[in-house]
Every structure is written in C-alpha cells, then in structure tokens.
C-alpha cells in the first residue's frame, strides 16, 4: 500500500562521478517494502519546477530506523535539483510503488546484472538474497572504470563481484551481456537472473537467459506521470504465454517483468 508523505532528507552525498545517494526519513517500519519497488519523488514543494515527480527505485530501506535510501545519477534538471538539496530539506514521497522482484525459496545460485544506474535496485535485492544464504554473483557493467558502481557494497554482502567495462579499463573487456555469456559458459548455469540497466542491456540479458533456459526478471524504466497506474503514460507491450500481445503499465504492473514476456522496442 502506497502512502503520500512529506519527508526530510537525512543525508544527500555524492557517490562518485555524477552519482548521488539520498537517505530519507520515510516510515519504512510501517510499510511492506520489497526490493525493486520505487517511489515518486517531489523536490519542489510549492512550485511547478520541475513539474512532474521523478521515479526512483528504492536502493535499500531500514525498517528499524524508518528510512529509505535512493541512489541516482544526475541526468537532467530534476536530478540536478535533487543533488543540490541538503539534510533537513523536505521532499514529498509517494510510495512504495510497483511490484518489485519476485524471490523464490528454491533458488540457490543467482546472478544479478546491473548496468549504469541500473545497479541500484539490485543492492536491496542482494541484501535479502545473501541474508537468506543464497549464492549471489553480481555482474556490474560500466562504460569505464570511473563509472563502476557499488563494487564494495556487493562484496561486503558476500556477493561474488565481476566487472565489465566497455573500454576494458577494468575487469572484463566488453558489455555486461558478453560477461554474462562468458560466466555461463565457464561456470555453468544459475537458477535465476535479475537485471536492471539500459534497455539494450536488459533486452540482451533476457535473450541470453532464455537461450540458456534460465528464468530472468528485468526492471524497466519508462517516462511516467502518475506512478500509480492511472495515466497510462508508461504502457509497454507484453507477450503472454499464449502469444497474445497485451499492454501493461511499467509503474503499476512492473517495473519488474519476466525477461521472456517483454516485447523490447515494442
């Protein structure tokens, strides 16, 4: 159940490059939050700039302390204004929204693939998976070594981290899709693959997973206005098990979908 809440920023700090992390005093103790869910963030309380709320996935949440963490990349005006806020400033939050990742008790070995800012929702997921004793491999893709994110956070949780960079400046030389193929070939399969990142990455990972007969889940992004399923701004096409093409809303029916059901580029 989502709530609409005026919150305070507890912390807003740079991570590296143009990435930031914001901790907000959201009443997480009363909410049922799942990794992969997101919130709509409003920085402008009484103004119309920026006009729409910004969707941000919940990187992590602390039920005991009653807070959520958002991690974000500055890409435009909205995220720049976010980065200029400081502890004590107010933000309006609608959330938690969407379905989040679906976890399976019987899974033993799990591969996470994150590209760019897509790595963030996988942090909260990794925290739960490792706490349940699962074997987790985190594949982190980036353009170059300066943009490799959250490596140590995954290591600290007990994940085995593998890195790919497009320019080969760190780890595997190539895309995260190439790295996944390499890992599957050398180390055999996995019980499940979770992926978030740019659309071409998710499309590629979903295809590789399907070929290897490994179920996958992808967390999609789309332009959205309401975040709750009302405006139909974020419709995507889905192929049902019967082969029928239907529409779903990224915000309300997702943002996490089975990799095999998404019609990428549709």
């Amino acid at each position, binding site marked *: *159940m*989502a709530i*609409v809440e005026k919150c305070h920023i507890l912390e807003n700090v740079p991570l590296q490059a143009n990435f930031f992390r914001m901790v907000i005093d959201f009443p997480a103790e009363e909410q049922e939050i799942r990794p992969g869910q997101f919130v709509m963030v*409003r920085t402008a309380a009484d103004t*119309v*700039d*920026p*006009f*729409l*709320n910004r969707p941000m996935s919940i990187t992590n949440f602390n039920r005991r302390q009653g807070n959520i963490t958002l991690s974000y990349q500055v890409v435009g005006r909205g995220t720049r204004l976010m980065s200029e806020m400081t502890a004590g400033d107010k933000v*309006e939050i*609608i959330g938690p929204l969407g379905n989040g990742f679906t976890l399976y008790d019987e899974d033993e070995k799990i591969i996470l693939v994150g590209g760019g800012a897509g790595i963030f929702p996988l942090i909260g997921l990794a925290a739960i998976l490792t706490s349940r004793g699962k074997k987790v491999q985190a594949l982190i893709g980036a353009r170059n070594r300066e943009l490799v994110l959250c490596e140590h956070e995954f290591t600290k949780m007990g994940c085995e981290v593998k890195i790919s960079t497009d320019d080969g400046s760190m780890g595997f030389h190539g895309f995260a899709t190439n790295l996944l193929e390499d890992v599957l070939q050398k180390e055999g399969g996995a019980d499940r693959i979770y992926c978030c990142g740019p659309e071409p990455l998710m499309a590629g990972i979903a295809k590789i997973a399907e070929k290897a007969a490994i179920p996958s889940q992808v967390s999609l992004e789309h*332009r*959205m*206005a*309401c*975040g*709750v*399923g*009302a*405006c*139909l*701004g*974020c*419709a995507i096409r889905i192929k049902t098990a019967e082969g029928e093409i239907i*529409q779903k809303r990224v915000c*309300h029916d997702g943002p996490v979908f089975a990799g095999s059901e998404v019609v990428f580029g*549709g």
Partner: protein
Amino acid sequence: MVNLKVNFGGLSMKNPITTASGTFGYGEEYSQFYDLSRLGGMILKGTSVEPRLGNKGYRIAETPAGMLNSVGLQNPGVHYAVEHYLPWLQQFDVAKIANIVGYEAEDYAQVVSIFDASKMIDAYEINISCPNVKQGGMAHGANAKTAAHVMELVRKETKLPVIVKLSPNVTDICEIAKAVEAAGADGLSINTFLGMAIDVKSRRPVLGNITGGLSGPAIKPLSLRIVYQLAHAVSIPIMGVGGITTATDVIEYLLAGASAVSMGTANFINPFAPLDVIDGIVEWLEKEGETDINAIVGGLKC
C-alpha cells in the same frame, strides 16, 4: 456550514469537484489513498466500443508548468468496463460520469447505449476533442455540424445528463458550443491544447505521436478565458477544466462562469489534491462570508 452541493445540468453532486477523464482511470488506483465518496464526481477514462491499445513510444513529456500526453485513448472497451469496473465503483457515493470516445459518430451512441443499459452511470462526457487519435476524436469537434450530429445521436440513447467536451483547438469555440446546446447537450467541458516538444539532442519529437495534449497550470489562463467566453454564449452549465491545482484556481473558474470543475494533472503531483482543494474552498467561502458555492458562479465583476 457552507453549501457545496451543485446541480450540474441535472446531475446532482455533493461538491463541484470532479476528477478529469484519463487522469483517474476508473478510480481504482486512487482509491488506495482516500475514500472516493469525498469527491463530487469522477469522470472515467475515455471508453470506446472496442478495446484500444493507444499510441506507441513516449506518451508523456514534461513541459514548463505542465505536461503533454499522447496516450491515444488506450482503454479496455465498454463491455469490459461495465463488467469489471462499474460494479466495484457502485460502493462509492460519487457521481460517475462516463467519458465516451469513438471513430464514427455512431460509435458514441453505441457506447452510451451500452453504459445506459448497465444503469451504473450517472452522466456522460462526450469527448469529441481528443487530440491524440488520427481518426475520430478531435475531428468530430472541429466543426459545429459534425459536433451537433454526434450530440443528436447520443441524445436519442439516453435521458441522463450529457456533457460535451469541446476542443479548444478551433477558431470559434462558441459557435460549436451553441450548436451542441441546440442539439440537446446539458453541459460543456473543455479538452487539452494541442502541443509539441522536441529533444534537440536527437532532433526528434519527444512524443511517439509527435504532438500531444497540453495540460496542467500552463493552460489555466487559456481555459479560464474559454470558460468566460462560453458562459456568455450558452445557457447550459460549464465544467471548468485546465490546470486546477488549488482552491483559488477553482474560485477563479466559478467566478468566470463554471458551475463545477475537473482536476486532472494535479492528481499526478499530489494524489490528495482534490481533497485539499475541497477543504480550501470551504475555508475561502467561510472567510468571504458566503454560505452557498452556487452564489459565486459567474460572479465576476467586470
């Protein structure tokens, strides 16, 4: 105690605040936040005879103090709506206004007759002004004759109040308003303004549909002016719609001649916006020493 009750062309509502079509689905999404019975009315998602997928590509573009949408009337079709959404909606004591779309004039009449047979709808809003579909939509609202033709066909199908949602993207909206009034419309409302956004980096339109409907505070002065003009041209009531986010916005529309209002985009910014506005109106009326909201309508001093 102030009276907020209004009668809009035969449709009785406990207050003049409705939620705008296409911004509130069939009510389900926002019912998680508050009791929908607090609203005066709900205008449901534009509904056609057959289901529609809507437009491809980006459907949303943020603009200064507003947004463009080119959803393209995605909806599950009237039969699905009647079967799956309307029975659930009956638990709420709120005026349920179906928004009707079609390709051909006959389609509008058909959708209305199906809704009418369900007896779960209180009034209609005929959308002859959607800017996001190639066929139908705005084409019907572009001239007085075709607009009146749609209204005549719909009139034969229902005794319930019918609001015609006019397109502001025309040369003379008052001429079309008079024509639909003569054809039996019980009220009028106004749709979005056709607009566009371009991404200079890719040199492409932001919206998959190239153009879209502009909504939000950016259009309030434009819609307000239209309400003022319509109020002088027709004698049926007018639903003020366009950029309402505060109680003051509503009061402005009422002074200009609207008898009720719709709030759309404001829901996206703050799901509680309609309730905040209702509270704000009561506060304003009390401060002004007014006891009845209806006394404000058309009270503009010029």
